[in-house]
C-alpha cells in the first residue's frame, strides 16, 4: 500500500504573529516557518505503518511556492520515500487543496491519505473531510489511534463526548489529532540522504483543478485586547473580588 501525506508549511507555532497595520494580512516576512504540527504527526503515523509492513511507500505532498522544496526535504529526511510539490504562488483554499489532492489520488492510487486535522495558520479543519467527500471514500477525522488490518482501518477518534471508534474500508482519509503519536526527530545523516530522494514538481495549473474561490478574506484585524487585570495577595482577597463581581 502507498500512503499520501499532506505536508503544509506554516508560521511556526511558537511565533506570536502580528497583523499588518493596514489590515491586509499578517506579517510573514522573516518569520520562522515550520511543518504544520499535525502534519508531522501524519507523516510519523505513515512511517510507523511502513515500519510495521502495512505500507510500502510514503509520499509527502506540499502545495505552495518554489521555495517549498526545502520544506519537503524535511519530510524526506524524516523518512518519506519521495515528495510531490504542487507549485503555485497563490494562496490555496481548503477546497482547492482537496481538489488538488483528488487529482494526485487518482494518479497515485494510495490505500490511505493521512492529513493533519487542521493547519495552525488558517485553523480551517476542512481539507481532509473535503477530499473524502470528493473521492467518495470514508473519513476518520481527529484520529487518536489507528489500526490497519484486512483492508480496513479501525480508528479511535477524539470527539467532544469522549473517544469514538469507527471502522472504515480502505482507501480512506484519516486526519490526525495531537495525541496520535510523538513525531521523531530528524538526524543529520538522514538530511544528507534526503538530498538524493526524488521530488516531483507539478504546476498546479497543469492539473486541471478548478481554483476559483468564492470566499474572499477582505480584512485582517488584531483581536480585541482585554483590559489590564489586577493582582490580589491571598485567597480571601480573591474570594472578595469574585463576590464583588457577583461570580461567587
Amino acid at each position, binding site marked *: 500500500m502507498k500512503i499520501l501525506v499532506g505536508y503544509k508549511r506554516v508560521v511556526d507555532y511558537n511565533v506570536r504573529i502580528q497583523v499588518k497595520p493596514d489590515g491586509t494580512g499578517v506579517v510573514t516576512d522573516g518569520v520562522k516557518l515550520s511543518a504544520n504540527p499535525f502534519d508531522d504527526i501524519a507523516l510519523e503515523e505513515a512511517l510507523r505503518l511502513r515500519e510495521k509492513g502495512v505500507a510500502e511507500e510514503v509520499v509527502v505532498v506540499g502545495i505552495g511556492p518554489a521555495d517549498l522544496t526545502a520544506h519537503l526535504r524535511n519530510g524526506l529526511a524524516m523518512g518519506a520515500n519521495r515528495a510531490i510539490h504542487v507549485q503555485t504562488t497563490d494562496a490555496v483554499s481548503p477546497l482547492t487543496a482537496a481538489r488538488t489532492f483528488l487529482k494526485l489520488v487518482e494518479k497515485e492510487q494510495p490505500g490511505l491519505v493521512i492529513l493533519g486535522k487542521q493547519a495552525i*495558520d488558517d485553523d480551517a479543519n476542512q481539507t481532509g*473531510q473535503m477530499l473524502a467527500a470528493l473521492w467518495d471514500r470514508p473519513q476518520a477525522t481527529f484520529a487518536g489511534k489507528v489500526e490497519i488490518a484486512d483492508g480496513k482501518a479501525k480508528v479511535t477518534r477524539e470527539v467532544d463526548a469522549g473517544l469514538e471508534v469507527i471502522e472504515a474500508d480502505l482507501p480512506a482519509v484519516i486526519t490526525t489529532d495531537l495525541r496520535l503519536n510523538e513525531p521523531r526527530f530528524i538526524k543529520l545523516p538522514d538530511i544528507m540522504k534526503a538530498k538524493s530522494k526524488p521530488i516531483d514538481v507539478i504546476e498546479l495549473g497543469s492539473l486541471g483543478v478548478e481554483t476559483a474561490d*468564492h470566499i474572499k478574506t477582505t480584512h485582517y484585524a488584531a483581536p480585541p485586547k482585554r483590559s489590564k487585570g489586577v493582582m490580589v495577595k491571598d485567597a480571601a482577597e480573591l474570594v472578595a473580588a469574585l463576590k464583588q463581581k457577583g461570580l461567587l
Partner: protein
Amino acid sequence: MTKILVIAEHLDGKLNGSTARAVSAAAAVKPDAIDVIVLSDAPDAVAAEAAKIDGVSKVLTVARTENAHSLAAVYAPQIVKAAAGYTHVFAPSTTFGKDLAPRVAALLGVSQVSDVMSVEGPHTFKRPIYAGNAIVTVEVDASSIVVATIRTASWPAATSNGSAPIEAISVDATLPSHTRFVELQQGKSDRPDLQGAPKVVSGGRGVGSKENFDIIYKFADKIGAAVGASRAAVDAGYVPNEMQVGQTGKIIAPELYIAIGISGAIQHLTGIKDAGTIVAINKDGEAPIFEIADIGLVGDLFKILPELEASLG
C-alpha cells in the same frame, strides 16, 4: 429569500446545547426562515426539544436506521439533498460539526466558513485564524450557498419558549456502507458540561499528578463549575482528552474561568480568550497567563485552594 438550515447535534436522544447557539448565529443573519434538521434513527425526542428553540421556523426530521450514529459520510449526502432551496447551512463548530460540514460543503462544491464568531451581513462573517491571534472578515459570493460552522463560545444559546412545527421528510440519497460505527467510550461525569458551563475551573501541569487533580475537582464542585485542563495536563495523563481547553481542544467562553497551575501557552489562551472573567493562580509570577488574567494570584496552589474553600464556607 434567505433561508437557513441548521444541523442539529444530539447524543443519546438529547439535543446538544450547541444547536441553540448555532440558531442564535442564524438569527443574526436576519433570515426569512430558520429550519433545524434532525437526522436520527429515532428523531422524535430531539425534534421536540429543537422545536422549542426560539426563532426556529420548522424542524425537519429524517428517520433512518443508518442515522443511528452521526457518521459524516452517511449524514452528508442527506444534508446536501435537504439543503436544496436554502441559502445557508449552519452547524456548530464542535467535533460533530467540524467532521460533517466540510463534507457537505465539498459535495455542494463550495468552501466552508469555519468558526463564525460574528455575522456582519448575510454573506459577511468574522472568524479567528492563527489560534485567535488575528480576526479576519470573509465575504462569500452572494450567488453561492453559505456553509459555515458556528463558534459556539461566541454565541449565547437561543432561549426555549417556542413551538415550531415538526415535519418528517424523506431524502432521496444513496448512503455509503464503507464507514461503520463501532463504539463510543464516554468519560463519565456528573459535573456540568465544559462547553456550556458558566463557570470552569482548569488545571495544568502545575497540579503535578492524576491524584492531585482531585483538589481541582473538589474546588470545582464547591463552586458548581465544570472542569477543564491544559494540554500539558492531558498529555501527562492527569485527565482524559475531552477535558482539553485550547486551540486544538475545546474553545469555551464561561462567565468565570479559573486557571490553576497553567502557564498560559498561546494555544491554551485561544480556548479561553472570550471568558467573562479570567482568574489565574500560579506560583510563577512571570507566567503568560497573568497577561490576560483579570485577577491574578501568585502562590502555591496546594496552599491556596484549601484557603479558597475555607473562605467560601
